[in-house]
């Protein structure tokens, strides 16, 4: 089945890892659940292979299987894993232990959780060479120290004596990387190593990984759900769906000519730079990932496939087939119809939409400030009674939004976007300034004192699908309660009727009214959340990262749904997000925030083109884009986000700015410079100079032609 000669990067050396026919299963109360099936993979020396897929596709299980670390209820059912020519199945526990951490090392998703909280970083690093190579304590210390320096940690000496919780997330991940590289492994497994980090920090880590793998000559298996990241790190990728690889090949070949309908569908779900909510909307994949014990016969993707052919696709298990292209002899696909389908013809979502006419101003935010008091409890402050420090969560926020308009608020963690949402919703009150909805200042009215009309006119869609619904009550109760509270209906039958209509609107079956949240998938929960927010016909809806916890294909569907409802109700949508791709795709105007302050605001076109604020510029560069033809200028920011408790005195971005002018940036708050009527940038650098900056992203003509 395996074809070791056909793959690899052509060097004559034997492959580092050779997996063929691998089957991994978990044993549950329901019996054996196959997690990974019929899995072949060969990784040559120095090669980087990506494993991409949505959650539940089995990609992390593969990594655990290679390490032979499947937990109590998992096991390898069939196939072979050969590492450096040795069959892993034949190794004893003791021999496996010697391979782990020495020859194969792993890097994990949550660096904070992966490090032991009660041991110093030095202790956790030093034990690797001490145990695997039996080196002395001094040598182990020296090696660990050098390795920390090699992963670009500024003050390795201080870090060695620190405990994990004392360093930032980005540095923790660098420590984990250093730990993995200490014994010079031949193979590095990376399981979503940057998913828990902010984009600008992620960019630094990704760059580091790419550099180190080149230097050390280690092979990489990079596991991620993010196709854009794959493009920056990998030579070759495998796309997984429901426990199987459905397509594999060189990165260019897959990105340029995806053959499998699922791979093709994935690209359709990603808001690439040339996507447009009106002219070229996202094409969500219908349906959802089957549960492992409910996989259909034949092709697992069959029920969701636009090119499904009954009797053929649902007959037998589909084998991998070679796609004989000249560019990539290793391109293989698990589809019977790969050479019959004309992907340009089966674009399922040909609909274009009329742009929404933006109406009168609905929401005005005028110089809004939100300061929090942080109590300090040292003895000194206890005596002097000055026990309060202020955190400026939001500083002078001003912008407005019209009827039917989508305004995005963009920023990384700690930028104050969630505080802003809380003030709007009345869960907090503004310290200063006004937030006017239809002329009434709501910023100073806490939620308890708002009238039902005011409450109904401003509703929210929350971020975490598992948190947005009360697990104890049925979906119907939770939507119905809103309808009743807002006085839209009071008759039980009419409430029920309206609940059903709302479920129709969010494209869920009416029977879901009786379901409990735990019976719903993440995307379905978000839909209920949207139904609840729109139950009272709100004028304005705040969506706080509504899709960031969802898989790509689900996120696309939820995004489209949100925009359809917005269009229909002419709702003003405040879209809070850290994801610039999504923001570019769906918003009319953008507000970029950093440490509680607005750095730049303007229409989407204005913000995404020069003149940029240096932070916007860096943020644009940091976002991975899953399109090999898009050219990107690389800007990697130094350091970490400062603590909001102790922000820089002058410009908040001054500590990390790649275009820092000088001490003026540290000492004085930047002036707000007006580029056009609506486009402003808060920076010490004159606009003329910022206009000279080249665009970060260059979209090739091909796409421009396609749009026009």
């Amino acid at each position, binding site marked *: 089945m395996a074809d070791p000669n056909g793959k690899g990067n052509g060097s004559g050396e034997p492959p580092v890892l050779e997996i063929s026919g691998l089957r991994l299963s978990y044993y549950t109360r329901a019996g054996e659940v196959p997690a990974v099936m019929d899995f072949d993979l060969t990784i040559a020396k120095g090669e980087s292979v990506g494993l991409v897929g949505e959650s539940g596709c089995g990609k992390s299980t593969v990594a655990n299987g290679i390490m032979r670390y499947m937990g109590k209820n998992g096991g390898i059912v069939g196939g072979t894993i050969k590492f450096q020519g040795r069959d892993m199945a034949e190794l004893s526990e003791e021999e496996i232990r010697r391979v782990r951490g020495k020859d194969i090392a792993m890097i994990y998703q949550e660096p904070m959780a992966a490090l032991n909280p009660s041991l110093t970083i030095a202790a956790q690093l030093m034990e690797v060479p001490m145990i695997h190579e039996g080196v002395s304590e001094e040598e182990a210390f020296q090696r660990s120290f050098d390795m920390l320096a090699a992963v670009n940690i500024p003050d390795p000496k201080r870090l060695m004596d620190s405990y994990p919780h004392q360093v930032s997330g980005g540095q923790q991940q660098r420590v984990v990387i250093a730990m993995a590289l200490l014994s010079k492994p031949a193979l590095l497994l990376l399981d979503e190593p940057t998913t828990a980090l902010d984009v600008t920090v992620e960019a630094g880590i990704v760059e580091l990984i790419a550099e180190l793998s080149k230097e050390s000559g280690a092979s990489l298996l990079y596991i991620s759900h993010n196709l854009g990241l794959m493009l920056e790190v990998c030579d070759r990728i495998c796309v997984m769906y429901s426990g199987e690889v459905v397509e594999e090949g060189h990165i260019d070949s897959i990105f340029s000519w995806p053959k499998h309908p699922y791979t093709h569908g994935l690209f359709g779900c990603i808001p690439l730079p040339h996507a447009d909510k009106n002219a070229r909307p996202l094409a969500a994949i219908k349906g959802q990932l089957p549960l492992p014990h409910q996989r259909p016969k034949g092709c697992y993707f069959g029920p969701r496939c636009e090119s499904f052919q009954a009797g053929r696709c649902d007959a037998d298990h589909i084998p991998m087939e070679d796609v004989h292209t000249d560019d990539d002899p290793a391109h293989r696909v698990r589809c019977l119809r790969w050479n019959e389908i004309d992907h340009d013809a089966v674009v399922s979502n040909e609909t274009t939409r009329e742009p929404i006419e933006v109406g009168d101003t609905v929401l005005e935010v005028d110089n809004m400030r939100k300061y929090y008091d942080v109590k300090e409890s040292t003895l000194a402050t206890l005596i002097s009674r000055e026990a309060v420090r202020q955190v400026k969560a939001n500083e002078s926020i001003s912008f407005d939004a019209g009827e039917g308009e989508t305004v995005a608020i963009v920023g990384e963690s700690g930028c104050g976007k969630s505080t802003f949402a809380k003030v709007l919703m009345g869960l907090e009150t503004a310290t200063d300034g006004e937030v006017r909805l239809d002329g009434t200042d709501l910023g100073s009215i806490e*939620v308890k004192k708002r009238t039902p009309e005011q409450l109904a006119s401003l509703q929210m869609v929350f971020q975490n699908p598992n*948190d947005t619904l*009360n*697990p104890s009550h049925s979906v119907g109760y939770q939507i119905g309660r809103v309808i009743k509270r807002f006085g839209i209906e009071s008759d039980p039958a009419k409430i*029920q009727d309206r609940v059903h209509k709302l479920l129709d609107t969010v494209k869920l079956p009416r029977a879901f009214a009786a379901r409990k949240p735990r019976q719903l998938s993440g995307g379905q929960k978000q839909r209920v959340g949207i139904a609840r927010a729109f139950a009272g016909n709100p004028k304005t809806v705040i969506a706080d990262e509504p899709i960031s916890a969802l898989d790509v294909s689900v996120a696309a569907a939820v995004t489209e749904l949100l925009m359809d409802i917005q269009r229909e109700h002419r709702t003003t949508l405040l879209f809070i997000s850290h994801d610039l791709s999504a923001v570019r795709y769906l918003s009319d105007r953008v507000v970029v925030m950093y440490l509680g302050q607005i750095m730049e605001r303007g229409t989407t076109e204005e913000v995404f083109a020069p003149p940029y604020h240096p932070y916007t510029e860096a943020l644009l560069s940091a976002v991975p884009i899953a399109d090999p033809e898009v050219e990107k200028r690389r800007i990697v920011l130094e350091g970490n986000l400062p603590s909001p408790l102790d922000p820089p005195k002058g410009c908040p971005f001054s500590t990390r700015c790649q275009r820092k002018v000088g001490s003026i940036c540290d000492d004085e708050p930047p002036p707000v410079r007006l580029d056009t009527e609506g486009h402003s940038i808060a920076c010490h650098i004159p606009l003329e100079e910022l206009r000279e900056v080249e665009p970060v992203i260059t979209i090739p003509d091909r796409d421009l032609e396609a749009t026009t």
Partner: protein
Amino acid sequence: MATSTTDAPLVRPDSTIVNAVKAVALLRESPVGLFGALIVLFFVLLAIFAPLVSPFDPNATILPFAFPGTAAPDGGVFLFGTDHLGRDILSRIIWGGQRVLFYATVATISAYIVGIIMGLAAGYFRGYLDEIISFFANVILSFPIMVLYVLIIAKVGASGLNIIFAVVFASSPGIMRIVRGVTMDIATRDYIAASQTRGEGPWYIMLVEILPNARSPLIVDFCLRMGYTTITIGALGFLGLGLPPPDPDWGGMITETRAFVTGGFPHMAILPACAVSLLVLGFNLLADGLREVSLKD
């Protein structure tokens, strides 16, 4: 209070009783828990049908110092023997079980009502209210619990009502702490923010949005506390501070007859000791099983 009771069937939250039944049904996943449930059920049935299953009048003095299996003078057998005053031990255990279960249940439920209200208020409103409630809880919890019981009962006197009062006083702070912790955790969830932004009142949020989600740790704790209250009532009886005689009380039975254990009549004290241990074991196993099942879900 802003709770609603007039919703249509579709939009009514599930009753806690239904959920409790479902939780017990889940116990088939945990054999140990099921065993515990059966023990508890056995004692509950004995208590309910005490008049039918008890072979003798528990307070009648019939034949002193009879060993288990001795035939009674006017028919019947003393299965568990009799005590030094000639009372049938089996009958006393059955009636004593009824008494202990009754007082333990009433006392624990009362303690729960107080503890839940205090805990919800402290955890949801926070601030000074929380500080005051938590301080007094700490004060009460800093007493070794038996010392507290001895002090209270010595002060107010031994009676059924006073025992209930003492249990509520001594164990509601512990319940309050659990509820407070869970409440503070749940209060940060988005669905609470969602209910606040549709203008729900605080008691609706506490009772309808928060409390149902706290049920699994509370059900587990309830079973444990039933066991512990059973122990306490027995201990008070043992120390002579319990339910007033002559009606049977397990702790009292042990203390009255324990001198005879080394004197050749061990069954008099040992059988009630086994009864109380078995009932407590039932509660503990049930709690353990419920915890196991709730973690699995």
